[in-house]
């Protein structure tokens, strides 16, 4: 799966317009990245990548690239 496809999955999960996110996007700048979005991310990572996210791991995410890295390792 390409980074672009993974980013598209994140955009779909968070109901963002296509092209809103890039690997460099800082999550703190995304208005929609709230507590519900984090729960959606947990579901996505578990269902699609078999990764169980904890609060500490999520707190460590600064940019979209940090999430992409975890998807790669899955």
């Amino acid at each position, binding site marked *: 799966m390409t980074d672009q496809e993974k980013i598209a999955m994140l955009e779909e999960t968070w*109901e963002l317009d296509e092209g809103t996110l890039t690997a460099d996007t800082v999550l703190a700048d995304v*208005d*929609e*990245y*709230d*507590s*519900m979005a*984090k*729960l*959606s991310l*947990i*579901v996505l990572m578990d269902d699609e990548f078999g990764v*169980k*996210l*904890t*609060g500490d791991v*999520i707190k460590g995410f600064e940019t979209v690239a940090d999430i992409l890295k975890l998807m790669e390792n899955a």
Partner: protein
Amino acid sequence: MFTEINNVKVIGMAAAVSPEWDSISDLSDEDEATVQRFIKKTGVSGRYSASPRQTTADFCFAAAEKLLEEKQIDKKEIGVLVFVTQTGDYRLPASACVLQYRLGLPKECICFDVNLGCSGFVYGLNVLASLLSNTAVKYGLLLAGDSSAREFSTRRKQREGHSGNWLFGDSGTATLMEKTEGGRLQFLSQTDGSGYKAIISPYGSWRNPDSPDGRTHYVVMDDIAVFNFATAEAPKQLNDFMAKTGTTPDDYDCLVLHQANLMIMKRVAKKSEFPEEKMLVSMDRFGNTSSSSIPISLVDKYGETEDDRTVKALCCGFGVGLSWATCALEIAAADILPLVHTDAYYKDGYNLDDQV
């Protein structure tokens, strides 16, 4: 712990909320897109909240009065009253004692509070069933509810991790149990106190009488920890329960989960292999009602039903503690009463205004 208690039966259920329903849009000062996203993700479009002086005990009182009147129960035969709440009227005495007086129950009736939330309805049923099965008492009353809307009313923004602001609703329920030949209740209950910080109201009690900012009645919740706990442990327990009792989702008319949030509920149903259409959803209109959520969902679904079918429900509550519990219960649909609406409060309740 797995327990099976014979010769007890749930013979009535009622729930009470205020007459006023507020939509999330009305409650919120966030922009409409944020509100719509919240509604879509949590499934909550509004909630009932208590009138200014109304408490959980007032809702439970109204539900119990209606239930005892409809079932024409002789109050002298009620020997146990268990009140499950985290929003009791006073720090002491136990609100159950006050409710015994208000309801006119006999002095022989044992009354106490149980401090549990989302798992509390199932725990309360377990305690009540155990007491009934070991005594000569004919009827027991379980009152369960919370008025959590007030505790979560601090309006901190969702992105700070406090999506609970609009999630919680106020209510109270009453469930009547009878000691009778042939009844049976099964329970599977667990606790993991190591997660006690995941949902906590740390101030205003004896360890921290005061708080850093002077407000003492709010709840702090670690959304992610709670989500991970609920979506892992609740389905595991449901599956264990079905394995122990030799049942499958086909054996139940409905799955009644604690109405935590719709994302959690859907995952729990999926992981326990329940078809989503069997899962009752009431939180869209009631919010998360803590220990009320299971009985209120049954009232919402069957309260207006008048036929003579029996409802077989698999119920699972999970949350604060951390504590989680599952039970299978059968109840005649006709014994589940329509929703009660009331804004009445206990005027003799040591209200501050009356002390001046």
